[in-house]
């Protein structure tokens, strides 16, 4: 995980630079399973301040959709189809996926 973290951080040096000009970044949030049910959406754009972490994005989403809190402890968080920790910084155009487990069969 550390390897990915470092990679993301190093990439972010450039985007932070760009971000300074815009002061905000727009990402696409993808909802799966229960997250889809509680938001009623499969995806949505989200604008956050540049330099925001995935955790910041989650807080933003939970203030929009308070019922997302119920799954906040039990989900996989992926940025551009790769697992990330909540401290990863998001860049313009990133895809943040919120994936709670399904248990049905």
């Amino acid at each position, binding site marked *: *995980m550390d390897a990915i973290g470092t990679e993301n951080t190093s990439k972010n040096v450039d985007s932070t630079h760009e971000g300074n000009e815009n002061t905000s970044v727009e990402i696409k949030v993808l909802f*799966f*399973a*229960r997250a*889809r049910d509680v938001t009623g959406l*499969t995806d949505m754009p989200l604008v956050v301040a540049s330099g925001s972490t995935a955790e910041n994005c989650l807080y933003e989403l939970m203030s929009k959709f308070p019922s997302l809190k*119920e*799954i906040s*402890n*039990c*989900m*996989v968080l*992926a940025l551009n*189809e*790769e*697992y990330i920790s909540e401290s990863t910084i998001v860049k313009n155009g990133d895809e943040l*996926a919120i*994936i*709670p*487990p*399904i*248990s*049905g*069969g």
Partner: protein
Amino acid sequence: MESNGNEELSRIIDELKSLKTEKSNIEHRISALEAQLRKIKVKKDDEMPNSNGSCTSTVKSFVDSSFGHGLSPNMIYRYSRHLLLPSFGVQGQSNLVKSSILVVGAGGLGAPALLYLAACGVGRLGIVDHDIVELNNLHRQIIHTEAYIGWSKVESAAAACRSVNSTIQIVEHKEAFRTSNALEIMSKYDIVVDATDNVPSRYMINDCCVVLGKPLVSGAALGMEGQLTVYNYNGGPCYRCLFPVPPPTTACQRCSDSGVLGVVPGVIGCLQALEAIKIASVIGEPLSGRMLLFDALSARIRIVKLRERSSQCKACGENAALTQQQFQNFDYEKFTQSPLSTSPLKLNLLTPTARISSKEYSEKVAGREAHILVDVRPTHHYKIVSLPNSMNIPLPTLEDRLPEISSALKKEEERRGVNTGSSACLYVICRRGNDSQRAVECLHKMGLTSAKDIIGGLETWAHDVDPNFPTY
């Protein structure tokens, strides 16, 4: 004339009925005998195994010594399309024939997984389930047929697998998978397929795989979505690495409550068979450390890279060292706050005076008692079937729509000309009698203290009052 026609009609219906019963009895007898026959055949085959060198059959020893892969002429013909695959070939098939796979759950995921695993020639295939086949399973659990309704799923699935491939060994575990029997059952297999439908089973199967060091092919499906991963394999993460904290019970949904498009678990079950076959035959790149997300509506499949094994994991982490004893003592129902069995929740929130039975309610309707019936199910449930003159106010909207209930009560009182002093009654119903209790609690708090719930909901109504009322 007409009475003659009616007589003939009922004679035909009666004869059809009795012939169908006879036919189904004969079919059951045939399949039971076939199963017996195959068991005897398998036993005989076991007595002369083709891979341990000391073969009693001259043909088999000829095959062994000539070709060195342990596949009999019959096997070569049956699996020829596998053998013709350069990337699979004799080595892949030979590995498969020697492998053993346990499928936990013979439902929507297990059905296609089992059929493919039986067909492809896995040496030993175990099936665990304690459920029986019901009519509302058949839209997705394609291994079961109408003739097996009311039979155990394991027997039904085993019979179907045997009819596809009588040369493999099929082991029936007709019991619930629990901490008390999990280690013993699972230890007899190389690979485990999780085809269950509930959260505690998923944690239990994961932990058991970690304790015994077995790869776990995990699939799940609900609504229009499916998920697939291989856990605890080649240093990859386990289920607990990803989800150390179980989801809250409000977030847990089952197909019996939320619905599922039949083919969705079918797709995931097929992919589970594929991953199990890859691991068993040692080909390709199993889906370890990655999760496949299937979205049926948008026809999209995404594969997300997962985290590595967590050193903090309670099951497989560095300091975890989960022992067999600890596993057996772990209370999975308590940990996940949900039951292992599929039996639906039965709440008991109200005092008996705040409840009436469906029979009592039917008497009140017959006695033309002034009342209002509120159905608190979701609207798409209400559209399936509902009681006459009920009003649909889904539970989450109840507080907001309280004025509607109050005005409906007033109208009913005026319409029935209820004497001043007494008032129209308020009854609440739902599918099984849980949400109706939650609704009555809520109504009491909001001042409608006369509200009562109909015990057991529409299911009990269908059972006790109107057998023709559809259930779902």
